[in-house]
């Protein structure tokens, strides 16, 4: 019962925190400079990780797919399978989970450290709204950056898949791409990519919540970093289930 109470309390607090983020997004002053700074930070921190992971995942997936499809004589389907799986699910989900690990932990740790060293109090003492200054730009940066990073993930996955296929069957780039995009519709691409804005919001607001609200000093820094990764990863996976149902409802064609 006590665990349930704490869970409900936690959900309520994170919910209120997220609603405050949504409300403050529309309230001036808008922290444009901070937003660009955070966007650059999120991009710089994650782009190489996303590209390398996507490339390796694409290559590995192609090797596995080939070993299965070869027994059905359907190796020509490999580019299409690769494209659909990356654009529809693997790209958005893996990019979200990687960002939760790379950026979420950073946001949690930085804000918790600022709380522990009274930097947040210092911002308030200078008549600056610390929530708008620190939290809102970080959440927005995650919301904006994650769809872009997902695109990098998708295309580096395709590239990894192509190179793997090229070594196996010398397929050629043009043929690979034409087979990859042949059966792909815009709805397979746009809706799953846009759903990562929700993942970005989850990462930004959950990580900021743990960092901004900690009151445990130095110990809270480590806890905030760990909790940010664990909770945002879990929420991303749970949200993915709901979002896929929503996408199937809005775009029935994608529910193959």
């Amino acid at each position, binding site marked *: 019962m006590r665990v349930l109470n704490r869970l409900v309390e936690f959900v309520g607090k994170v919910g209120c925190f997220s609603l405050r983020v949504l409300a403050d997004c529309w309230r001036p*002053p808008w922290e444009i400079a901070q937003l660009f700074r955070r966007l650059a930070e999120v991009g710089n921190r994650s782009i190489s990780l996303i590209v390398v992971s996507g490339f390796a995942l694409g290559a590995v997936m192609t090797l596995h797919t080939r070993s299965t499809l070869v027994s059905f004589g359907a190796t020509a389907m490999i580019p299409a399978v690769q494209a659909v799986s990356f654009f529809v699910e693997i790209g958005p989900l893996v990019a979200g989970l990687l960002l939760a690990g790379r950026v979420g932990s950073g946001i949690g740790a930085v804000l918790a*450290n*600022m709380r522990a*060293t*009274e*930097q947040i*109090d*210092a*911002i*308030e*003492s*200078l*008549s*600056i*709204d610390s929530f708008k200054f620190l939290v809102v730009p970080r959440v927005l940066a995650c919301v904006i950056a994650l769809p872009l990073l997902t695109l990098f993930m998708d295309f580096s996955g395709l590239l990894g898949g192509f190179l793997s296929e090229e070594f196996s069957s010398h397929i050629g780039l043009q043929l690979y791409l034409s087979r990859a995009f042949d059966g792909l519709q815009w709805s397979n691409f746009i809706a799953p990519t846009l759903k990562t804005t929700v993942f970005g919001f989850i990462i930004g607001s959950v990580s900021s919540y743990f960092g901004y609200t900690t009151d445990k000093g130095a110990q809270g820094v480590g806890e905030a970093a760990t909790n940010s990764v664990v909770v945002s990863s879990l929420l991303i996976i749970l949200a993915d289930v709901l979002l896929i149902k929503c996408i199937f409802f809005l775009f029935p064609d994608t529910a193959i």
Partner: protein
Amino acid sequence: MKSFGEKRVLNNVSFQIEQGEAVCVLGRSGTGKSVTLKLIMALMRPDSGEVWVDRDNVVGMAERGLSVVRKKLGYLFQDAALFDSLTLYENLALPLKRLTNKSKGEIENVVHRTLTDVGLGADGAKYPSALSGGMKKRAGLARALVLEPKILLADEPSSGLDRITASEIDELLMRRKAEHGTALIIVTHDVHGVHRVADRVAVLDKGDLVAFGSVAEVSQSENDVARRLITE
């Protein structure tokens, strides 16, 4: 009154300071000295009671009103609380950019002048991680003063510093008071500093204000803790 959970930190504290006056707040560790400063700055809210800055009671005041009141106050944090990701120049320029209509050139002048006042005129491009403890304290003081507040709240400005650096900080505070009429509320354990700076002394013990008066008055106080704190 202010409590944290079951623990009551402040119980019965009431005092008033005038413009241009320096009040040092003394007390044993954990008696609510820093909490008192945070209540004045409205970084915390008391469970009951009032905090008046000029004609405004900051308790229960909305954010918009608070931001007006806070412009009258400067706060030197115990560990300076400089923003890690900004240079010293940017630390001082931030409030000027946000809260004043000064041009870029004017902001540069004000920041340079304020840093020079605290002896850091050549260090504006440095990040806080590159500064010594004493330099951080001076930088924190510069940031607290950059908006020219009427009241400066200083939380242990000499803690962790050698006696010479501590007295340099005290001199900066006294100069500010003399030249600008800034009121000072200084939480400190440094008795030498109290004798140098304080017009009056407030002594807190177990959340109560047990003595308030000039250094001479407090050193003859009937309260044992107050007398020992100021004389030993």
